[in-house]
C-alpha cells in the first residue's frame, strides 16, 4: 500500500488510463555525455558540443516515458510524434517535461493514448512542446492480445496512421 508521497503504479490499460491524467518527469541536467551518446546512436556528427547546444530532439524520450511515472507499462508502440521547437536545449540546462493525457481511443481493436507535453528549463521557459500517440499493449491476462501481436503474425500490421 502506497503512503503519502509514494507513487502507486497501476497497470496501464485503456480502462485504467484517465483522460486528464497529468505526468511530470524528473529533472535532467543536460551533460556532454548525453549529447555524445545521442550523436553516436543516431549517427549525427554535427558539432553540437562545440556549440554548447543540444540536438533538438535530445529530450524526446523524457516526454515519451512520462506514462511510466504513474503506470506499469507492459509494452507499447509509438504511432505519432509532433514537436514544436521553441527554444534550443543547451548544454548545462536542467530540463523537465510535463504531460497530460488528452485522448484515448480504440481503433481497429487496438488501444491508443494521446499525450500533450511541454519540456521546460528550470526557469519554466518552454523549450519544446507537442503531442504524441502511443499504442497500449496490455498484459495478456489483462486483455486479449490484438490479433496482429500473436506469435507468427505480421507485425507490420501493428503500424498505421492514427
Amino acid at each position, binding site marked *: 500500500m502506497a503512503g503519502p508521497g509514494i507513487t502507486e503504479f497501476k497497470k496501464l490499460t485503456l480502462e485504467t488510463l484517465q483522460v486528464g491524467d497529468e505526468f511530470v518527469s524528473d529533472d535532467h541536467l543536460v551533460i556532454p555525455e548525453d549529447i555524445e551518446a545521442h550523436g553516436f546512436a*543516431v549517427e549525427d556528427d554535427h558539432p553540437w558540443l562545440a556549440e554548447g*547546444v543540444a540536438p533538438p530532439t535530445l529530450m524526446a524520450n523524457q516526454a515519451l516515458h512520462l506514462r511510466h511515472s504513474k503506470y506499469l507499462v507492459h509494452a507499447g508502440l509509438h504511432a505519432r510524434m509532433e514537436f514544436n521547437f521553441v527554444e534550443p536545449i543547451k548544454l548545462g540546462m536542467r530540463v523537465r517535461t510535463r504531460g497530460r493525457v488528452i485522448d484515448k481511443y480504440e481503433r481497429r481493436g487496438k488501444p491508443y493514448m494521446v499525450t500533450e507535453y511541454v519540456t521546460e528549463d528550470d526557469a519554466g521557459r518552454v523549450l519544446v512542446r507537442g503531442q504524441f500517440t502511443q499504442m497500449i499493449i496490455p498484459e495478456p491476462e489483462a486483455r486479449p492480445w490484438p490479433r496482429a501481436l500473436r506469435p507468427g503474425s505480421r507485425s507490420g500490421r501493428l503500424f498505421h496512421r492514427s
Partner: protein
Amino acid sequence: MATRVETGIAVGQALPPLVKDVSQRRIDVYSGVKPRSIHSDEAWARQKGFRTCLAQGMMSTAYVSQLMVNLLGPGFARGGTMSMAFIKPVYAGDRLTVHGVVKDRQNENGATRVVVEVWVENQHGEKTAVGHATGLVS
C-alpha cells in the same frame, strides 16, 4: 549554433538524403538496455511477434531533425516543427534512407517558413515513417 542561412531553397528541391545503419548497439545506446524491452531484449521482442529488436520510432525523428538542421541550421532548433507517423517497424540491422522534398515556402512575420515533406525508407524501399517538418529562413 553556427549561423547558417539558406536563401536559395526552392519548392520541389530534394534534400541530400541521409543513410543510417541501425545497429543493435546504436539502439541500445539510444533506448537503454532493459529486460522485457522490445528494443533491447530479443527474446521479448520475439514473444511480442517481432522478428528481432525494434528501433524506437523516435530515432527516426532524430534523423529528420538532422536533415532539417543540415538545411536550416538554427532556423530549425528555434521555431522548427515536426510531425511524424511511424508506419512500419524498423529492426536492428536495417539500413534507412531519410528523404526530404521542399513543398512550400510561407511568409511568417518577415521570415520564411520552409515546409518539407519527409519520409524514411528501409533497405527494401518500404516507408517506415512519414510526415513533414518546417523551419525558418531568416
